[in-house]
């Protein structure tokens, strides 16, 4: 998947370049992920930055168990959950999100959100790029079409397919866990 091996190899050769590629590939999606868990972009950015600093300063690229994506998403997820669990603020702006996290009825499921972002990483390159431009850069369909030199209809179709694919993946996952759960009983 996305540049992961290249990032690790580059880190071993030239740390600075490795970091640049890591940043370009994962920084934006990771803050987005954190923001969805925390409901606060600034806190999310702090957590992602700390995760990058730790990754580099402690040379986590040496002897990484499992994939880089998996490592990064888990690190950020744990950072966010710890943050939510531990902050006690006088003016608690995270109350609502914490309620959501722990309220069974309408819970934000961190695993599901993680799955969402890792599925985005797995989208075909062009589709992922369009989703990124629309979502992260906040570009209008027309501007995306102009920049990529494609028709606005292509943008529309690709966005539709991306959404459909993501929904299906997330839903399938739920069925799977449900089946598994039934079997275990």
């Amino acid at each position, binding site marked *: 998947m996305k540049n992961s091996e290249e990032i690790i190899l580059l880190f071993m050769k030239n740390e600075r370049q490795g970091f640049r590629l890591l940043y370009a590939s994962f920084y934006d999606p990771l803050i987005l992920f954190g923001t969805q868990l925390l409901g606060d972009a600034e806190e999310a950015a702090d957590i992602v930055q700390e995760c990058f600093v730790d990754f580099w300063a402690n040379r986590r690229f040496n002897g990484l168990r499992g994939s880089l994506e998996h490592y990064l998403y888990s690190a950020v997820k744990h950072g966010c959950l710890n943050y939510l669990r531990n902050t006690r603020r006088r003016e608690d702006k995270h109350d609502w999100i914490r309620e959501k996290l722990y309220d069974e009825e309408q819970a934000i499921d961190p695993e599901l959100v993680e799955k969402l972002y890792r599925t985005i990483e797995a989208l075909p390159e062009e589709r992922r790029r369009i989703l990124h431009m629309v*979502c992260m850069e906040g570009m209008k369909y027309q501007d995306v079409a102009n920049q990529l030199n494609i028709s606005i209809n292509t943008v529309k179709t690709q966005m539709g397919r991306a959404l459909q694919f993501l929904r299906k993946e997330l839903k399938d996952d739920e069925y799977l866990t449900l089946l598994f759960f039934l079997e275990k009983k």
Partner: protein
Amino acid sequence: MNDKISEIIAAYLSGEILPEGKRQEVEAWLRDHEGEKEIDALRGLFQSARLVKQTPGIRGEAVMQKIEANVKSRRVGKKLSIRWKYSIAATVAILLCCVLLYKWLGSNQENQVIPRDLQQGVNGYRAHLRLSTGEVLELNKYDGKFIREDSVQIENVNSTLMYKSMDSVAPVRMEYNTLVIPRGTEYNVVLADGTKVFLNAGSEISYPVVFAGDKREVKLQGEAYFEVRKDERRPFVVQAGDVRIQVLGTSFNVTAYPERERIETTLEEGKIQLTNGKALVEVTPGKQAIYNKDEGVFEIKCVDTKLYTAWKDGYYKFDQMSLEEIMETLSLWYDLVVFYQNQHVKSLEFTGRLRRYDKVENLFEKIEQTGLVEFEVNGKNVIIKEK
């Protein structure tokens, strides 16, 4: 979900303009699927993207450089510590002294976890209020109650004092109240004009119960964050030691502990003027004015204001700050006495954030994770050793 509806939903969530009919179609579809987790998750994706875009300064080249700098500072620290490990003889000698000192200091202290209780503070210290009559009230005894001071009602809820004037006419004679916050605790006060003041541990503030005249003037010792209610006709003045800070309506942090050499004023919003009676400086947002008490001069520098104001939001943020400075801050809040193994330990630099309401042990553990230092806690006394 078929192709057609997916496309419309995607466009809707992306904020594209849709014809009325299609918009209704999407909204109806979303209503029908309300509560479905995967739809909520996808919606959250677009909402979060909007939130990220609206938050400036969290992406881009500057962030990359910050990360690089942090990595460097951690590595530099590590290298030094390795080199230091070679001076074993010296270290052992100092260690021995430390152990003795520790035993001696700790002999009559219980070895216990320091509890955090906002109302009470550590070791039973409590915030108290001195009224204009000279009467002193322990605020925890008045929790959730009203305190009267002539024409003013003072509400005391959730570690916050709120002044409400009952008279519409300004008083002839100004009555002053003084709020005293011991180490290990904190309090907020909303003054009669609506100005909000967050007071940090070990601070004291005096203010008129009701403001009169053409100025709103308060006196501060220690640290406070001000959110001044705008009033063009009556400037707000903070007297902190020799420094006079004048504002119209802004948010800023003042650190003016009598035992420190510097008075720091950090501005988040608006504009402020500072003077020591001789020099006069103006500060704009994102800048900090540092007043050197000995030399009587101001210095202005650009800072990340969060480093100086995060305490009021319940955390501490440090950016390549020396352990000595970090411990200065922590010891006020946790009421600690800190000893260092040697001068070098003091100068080790750390970057990171700590939660203010955490147990102090957890904070130490975080700093220990860098592998540079070790903390030994015995009651109030903390000894910091190099690893």
